[in-house]
């Protein structure tokens, strides 16, 4: 079916560009490999948990940085968690911002931390929208009766 083939091509192109632009790394591919007929929604489930978690963490970070006396240990702990979960799903750009953020925490550099939080929000929103687009493509392929291409 031409429609399925076109959707599959789109999917491959989109996934490839996400990897090339560094939004996703190999860990995302690893997660896709863990998905099969017995667990067809595994990636979506993990990523949904990630979205929920991330939004909580971003709120916690904003609150922590607004305190009169900032507890940098607490801030670092949130960032560490965010870095971990981002690495676990392959959200490479988000994880990279976390690394810089942790450095500013160590230096107790408030301005640096605030800037990083902004960057973190931006990168998170970007990767979230791209993953949502990817999942929509997958749904379209499945609904058109096709198979989602295995990457790599």
């Amino acid at each position, binding site marked *: 079916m031409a429609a399925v083939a076109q959707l599959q091509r789109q999917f491959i192109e989109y996934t490839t560009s996400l990897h090339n632009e560094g939004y996703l790394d190999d*860990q995302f591919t*690893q*997660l896709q*490999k*863990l998905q099969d007929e017995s*667990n067809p929604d*595994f990636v979506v*489930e*993990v990523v949904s*948990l*990630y979205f929920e*978690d991330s939004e909580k963490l971003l709120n916690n970070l904003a609150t922590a940085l607004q305190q009169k006396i900032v507890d940098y240990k607490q801030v670092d702990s949130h960032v*560490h*968690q965010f*870095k*971990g*979960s981002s*690495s*676990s*799903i*392959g959200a490479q750009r988000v994880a990279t911002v976390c690394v810089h953020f942790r450095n500013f925490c160590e230096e107790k550099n408030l301005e640096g931390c605030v800037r990083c939080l902004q960057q973190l929000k931006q990168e998170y929103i970007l990767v979230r929208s791209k993953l949502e687009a990817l999942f929509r493509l997958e749904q379209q392929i499945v609904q058109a009766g096709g198979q989602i291409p295995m990457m790599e």
Partner: protein
Amino acid sequence: MDTMNVCCNQITPSNSKELHVLAVDDSNIDRKVIERLLKISSFKVTVVDSGSRALQYLGLEQESNSTHFDDLKVNLIITDYSMPGMTGFELLKKIKNSSTLKQIPVVIMSSENILTRIDRCLEEGAEDYLLKPVKLSDVTRLKDSILKTETTGIDQLQSCRIKRKRNDDWLPQPAPKFARL
């Protein structure tokens, strides 16, 4: 008890018991991923979110209850290092200091590639130290290692494998002093 039919990397499900892994991680995302990795590798999996829950499960807090322990029969514990409350390292120490639990291999998972941390864990008796995010190949390798020690009965601590990033300098290791069994 050892009628497991193992040849190299294969295990025939029909005449072998599934190995039971207790996975410990405070991150819900990581718990989901490690559970899937382990299940795909044909482990039976129990997942908990803290060191204290792990100890509860292992019956440490009810040491007198030996029949309770037999039902659980955990063959491997895999735990995150950085957890609030009890760290993975503290959990490792408690397990290795327990007469009933010390023979269970413990693997540490961590996102941090810190050599002193790795050394400390191995010295405390960890079977292996895996860098997060953990891959399927790590779990497969682990399974082979655990299977070998289960069937041949060799002191598993003699076959400790260290996972490090390949571009790290290799530091000379002190001779392992793993006479714990």
